[in-house]
Each structure stands twice: as structure tokens, then as C-alpha cells.
């Protein structure tokens, strides 16, 4: 921490400060450089370490309190199993191979749905963002559809596509589509007019305008949208599998079925695995996003690498 010292500023000729009753003397603020200024690299590393420690310590403390609450019987372990019990149960399920089919079933629905929805949302977002007439034609309808709860569409998709995997994949795709469409359209609309004018001056055709201006300028915010959408995709598939899982599998089915049969351990295992899958999926999307947009600033925060 840098020190601040305030001293009355003496007159330039070195005369004594003004006598009592006179206007206050001008103050001089002296600030010594702190560690961040003296050694920026070390300070950044220290900050990053602190962030990592906090990121681990906060959930760890909560988990420890939960464990303690169960062991001290402050809460009922049959309803809120201890983290240790959940971990042991989850590990046993992994070792026995009972968990993988559910994880795999969920991924088989989430990944294709996410890719389809992202692609469609991006293309439509580019078009509606760059072509006012297309925007005028589609935006009101898409806005209206956007607010429809996506899970409410599941029965309709079941009717249209039958009882297989397709309704689940389409549900994820539709959920992702709207997020990416809005994000892309907003990003394209936010591209400064000067960029477009410069491209026009250089004789860029429509394709070159997309290739060199609109796509690079819009991609960074779209990547942020993709991360949001990845979380939503996992969220929606878990709820959907809980409602109607085609083959009685998937993490959503695991959670809701465990709840139905009062198997709280399995339910919590499912919830934790969903959280892990969600984080990994989001991080994968972030990683791919950074590869696709090396020019974009990192949004990890001040300590970000």
C-alpha cells in the first residue's frame, strides 16, 4: 500500500506559514509509489494468485460448513447428504460406469443442439444486423418467439419430431438460437459507421464487408453470448430430460428420477455433475472463442492473463 503524506506547502521563498487567522496554506500531496508501480509484474502475479485462492477458498469454506453441519446433525443427512458422501457416491458411480451413460446422453443432446442453434443464430443475427429490410421482416416475430418459455415448446417438438433425440436437440438449438441471434444483431449494429465507410471507400463488396468488417467486429461479443448460451443449453437440457427423456437417461433424468425415488445422494451427484459439465462446457467455449478472436481483449478481469 502506498503512503500518502500531506504537508503544508511553504512559500516559494521559504518564508514561514501564514499566521493564525490568515487563509489556509496550500497543501501538497505526496504519494510514494506502491508495489504495483515499483514491480508491476510481481503485483499482477500476486493479484492473480489472490484471485485463484479466493476462487477456491470461498466454495471450499462453504463445502466445509456443509460437511460440518451434517456431521454435527444440524441438518438431516438423509435430506442433505454430506459433501463427502456425495463425492464418495459420485466416485463409486463413475468407477462402476453408472454415470458415464447419463453424461454421454446429455452431451449427445447439448453439443449438436448448441452448434445448430449457434450457427443459425449467428447467420440470422448477421443478416438482421446488416440488412434493415430483413430486420424489419424478422425482428418482431423473433422478439415475440424469444419470450416464449422454451420448455413449453417441448410437447410441441415431441409431437412434431416424435419420441427420439430430435426434440431435445431442437429444444437446445432453439434456446441457443435466440441468445446468439440477439447478441450478433446487437454486435453488428454496434459496429462503428466509420468502419463500414472505410471499407466502402476501399471498394469492398458485400462479402468483403462481412469478411473484413462485420464478422471480425461482431465476433468478440458473440463469443460472450456463446458462453451465456452454453450455460443455458445445459440448463434447458437438464430440465427437458427431467420432463421427458427419450431413453430414460441423461443427467436431467438422473436428477429428477433420483428425486422421485427419494434417493437424495444420487440427486446431489447429478446436480454436481451438471455443474461440472456446465463449467467445462463454458470453459471450452471460452477457449475456442479466444482462439477465434485473438484480437479481442480478455475479460477475465484485472488479473487476467
Amino acid at each position, binding site marked *: 500500500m502506498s503512503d500518502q503524506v500531506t504537508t503544508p506547502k511553504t512559500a516559494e521563498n521559504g518564508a514561514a506559514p501564514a499566521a493564525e487567522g490568515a487563509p489556509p496554506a496550500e497543501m501538497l500531496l505526496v504519494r510514494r509509489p506502491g508495489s504495483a508501480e515499483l514491480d508491476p509484474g510481481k503485483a499482477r502475479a500476486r493479484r492473480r494468485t489472490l484471485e485463484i485462492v479466493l476462487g477456491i477458498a470461498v466454495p471450499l469454506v462453504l463445502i466445509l460448513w456443509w460437511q460440518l453441519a451434517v456431521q454435527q446433525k444440524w441438518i438431516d443427512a438423509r435430506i442433505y447428504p454430506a459433501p463427502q458422501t456425495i463425492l464418495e457416491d459420485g466416485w463409486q458411480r463413475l468407477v462402476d460406469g453408472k454415470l458415464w451413460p447419463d453424461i454421454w446422453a446429455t452431451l449427445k443432446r447439448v453439443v449438436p443442439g448448441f452448434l445448430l442453434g449457434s450457427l443459425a443464430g449467428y447467420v440470422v443475427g448477421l443478416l438482421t444486423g446488416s440488412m434493415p429490410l430483413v430486420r424489419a421482416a424478422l425482428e418482431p416475430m423473433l422478439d415475440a418467439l424469444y419470450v416464449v418459455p422454451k420448455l413449453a415448446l417441448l410437447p410441441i417438438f415431441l*409431437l412434431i419430431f416424435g*419420441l427420439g433425440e430430435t426434440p431435445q436437440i431442437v429444444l437446445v438449438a432453439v434456446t441457443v438460437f435466440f441468445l446468439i441471434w440477439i447478441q450478433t444483431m446487437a454486435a453488428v449494429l454496434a459496429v462503428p459507421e466509420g468502419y463500414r465507410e472505410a471499407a466502402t471507400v476501399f471498394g469492398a463488396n458485400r462479402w468483403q464487408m462481412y469478411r473484413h468488417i462485420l464478422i471480425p467486429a461482431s465476433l468478440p461479443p458473440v463469443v460472450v453470448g456463446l458462453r451465456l448460451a452454453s450455460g443455458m443449453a445445459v440448463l434447458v437440457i437438464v430440465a427437458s430430460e427431467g420432463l*421427458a427423456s427419450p431413453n430414460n437417461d441423461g443427467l436431467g433424468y438422473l436428477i429428477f*428420477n433420483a428425486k422421485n425415488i*427419494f434417493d437424495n445422494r444420487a440427486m446431489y451427484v447429478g446436480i454436481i455433475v451438471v455443474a461440472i459439465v456446465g463449467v467445462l462446457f463454458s470453459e471450452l467455449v471460452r477457449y475456442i472463442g479466444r482462439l477465434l478472436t485473438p484480437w479481442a481483449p480478455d475479460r477475465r478481469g484485472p488479473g487476467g492473463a
Partner: protein
Amino acid sequence: MARRRRAGMASVLLACTALLATSCVSSDDNAEGAKSAPSQTTPVQAVAGCEKGWTDPSDLSPTRAPARCAPNTPAAKPLAAKTKIVVTAGTLSAEYLGPLRLGIAKGEFAKENLDVELKQMPSTDAITLLAKGEIDALYSAPEAGMVNAAKQGFNVKWVFGNYSSDPKSKTGVWAKVKEGQTAEQVDLKGARFASLVGKTSIIMYPIERVLSKHNAKVTDVDFKQLDAQGVAQALENGGVEAAWLLDPVWKQFENKPGYVFLGGQPAGEPIGGMLYGPNLLEKNREVGTAFARALIRTVNTYFAGDYKADPAFTQELATVLGSKVELLSAVPSLVTDWEIRTGTTDKAQKMFIEGKVVEAPALTEDKLVDRSFYSEAVGHTGK
């Protein structure tokens, strides 16, 4: 200062770890194991009007007449103080809730000094609240969740039944058939089967009975859990080969070429009803008995026979349930029955264990069923 803060954080972590280290108790120690609450029933007195208010639970005859008392009996025995009781049900408009909802509307519970608060909640959520004592009673069935809760030591019990289907009702398993194929020729091995509820429901018991007559076991069938309308549509559009159809959905398949009824709920054997939790099983048994008495009185007064033969009553029932007269009139009256047959929970558990939703061994009936409330209400010793 920063160093002091970090030290503080480390102290919290250390304190937690130390506390954990000093309390090396297995988290499973809370599980008390299935235990049965002692039946501390008050002395049973013969109740006027209820001379035929009891049948032997081991009488499994499909033609057994359900227990009945005279209308307006058993007479009310108001509790000393007005008592609120919270009951939940998965739906509030189903016909089988008629006795409960009409009883509330007609003041039968108020006569017992009971204030019944009825809430809608999925039974899979409500069973946890029942086990924790946050609700008093749950209108459901001895399903897998209830069995597992009992296995984990929670005191939840099935305390009275609800109904069995009228012989004319065709609620149950329906299947698609090829031209010229009869119901007896239907082979359900490997079939896709749609139902509103999955393997965790008591409905698996009657389904298994039907499957066994058609060359299949529960494990041979691919179950699809869909909503009520989805079940009918899946059967109609070929998404499944068989389905469990509820009232009055089966009416749209009756006499329709290509569909046959294979069987439904066992005659004379209720498979659902009221579950009590620790509040009524342990703390306030007299409240549980008063609740049973009011419900039984409502059945005897309004639902003793073919209650839908009276159009005015059907209209009143539809209003109370928030249902439609045409829906109620489309299907036969339910055979209301507050008693619980011997062995129903054994058969249900067999299905749950086969379906891998409950682990063996099965619980004995006394861990899941308590007939003392309705016995006491009608003045029978229960023996």
C-alpha cells in the same frame, strides 16, 4: 493490513478444518434405519352406523363389497381446539379427490374442528416435506419415493385407501393391434409403453399384471414417461405400442379399430390414498383420526354408491373440483374405498425392486401401512 486480512481468512479455513477433524462422525449416522412408530391409539369404541364399516384386509376377492357406514356416520368428535392441517395433492381437480374436496366444502372437516389447507404440489416434492413434518398429509400412493423414505428411517405411512375402478371402467393398459388381432394375442415383449408416471409409481403394479398376461416383464418394456395428452397422442401416432390411459382419455380409444383394452387396476384393491407423516403418526394422532373420520363420513354420505347417477350431484362435484360435468359423466363412478388390502405394498415393492428404483429387501407391511386411523374412526379394533 493485507497480511492481517489473509491471516484472518486462513484462520477461518483452519477453524473449519479443525471442527471437521474433531467431529469424525460418519454422515450416515443420521440415518436411523426404518423404524415403526409405536401405535399409541386411543381405546377403540364401537361407532354407531359403522357396523359394516370394516372388512378383513386379507379378503382379496374382486367382488368384495367395500366397507360402508350409514350416511353421516361416523359421527363427528370435535377436537378440543381448532387445528390446522396441511394436505397436498398432485392435482386438485381429479375425481378421486372428490371426497376430500367435497368434505371441505360441506364442512365435514370443520365439524371435527379441523381447518384443512389443501395445496397442489407434485407428490415427489411433497414426500420430502411430509417426511420432514412440514406438511401433515399427502394424497398420493405407496410409491417408490415413499418406500425409500421409509427405508431411510422416515416415519411416513399409507393410512387409508381411495378407490378401486368400477368394473365398467377401462382405465388401464391399452395397446395397438393389427387387423384381426385379438386382445389375447397381443405380445408386449419389447414394446414401447407410454405412461404419465414412470417406474417409480405404484401404477407399475397393475401394469406388471397386464404385462405378465402378454408375454412381457417390466424389464422387457421400454417405458416412455409423457404428459397425459402426450400419452394418448403417442399411442395414436404410433410412437408407442401400448399405454396406460387415465379417465377419461381412454374414452377416445373405446370402440376405435386397432386399439384394445388389456386390463387395469385390480378390482377391489385401492392402490393409492392418504399418506401421513410424523406430525399425525406420532405427535397428533387424534388429529389424524379426526381427519380420517371426516373423510370416511364424507364417503358414506356422498360417495357410497354410484354417485354420478344423480346429475345434480355430478354438477356440484364438478363445481367443487373445478372440473367439467361432461368429463365426470363420461366415465363410471369410482368405487370409493378407504381400506387397504393386505399385500398391496408387497406387490408394489416387488415391482420397484425389479425396476431397480428400490433396493432389496422389501419392507414389511407394518413399516409402510397403518390401518389404525380408519379402524379407530369406524370403531374397529383392526383385528
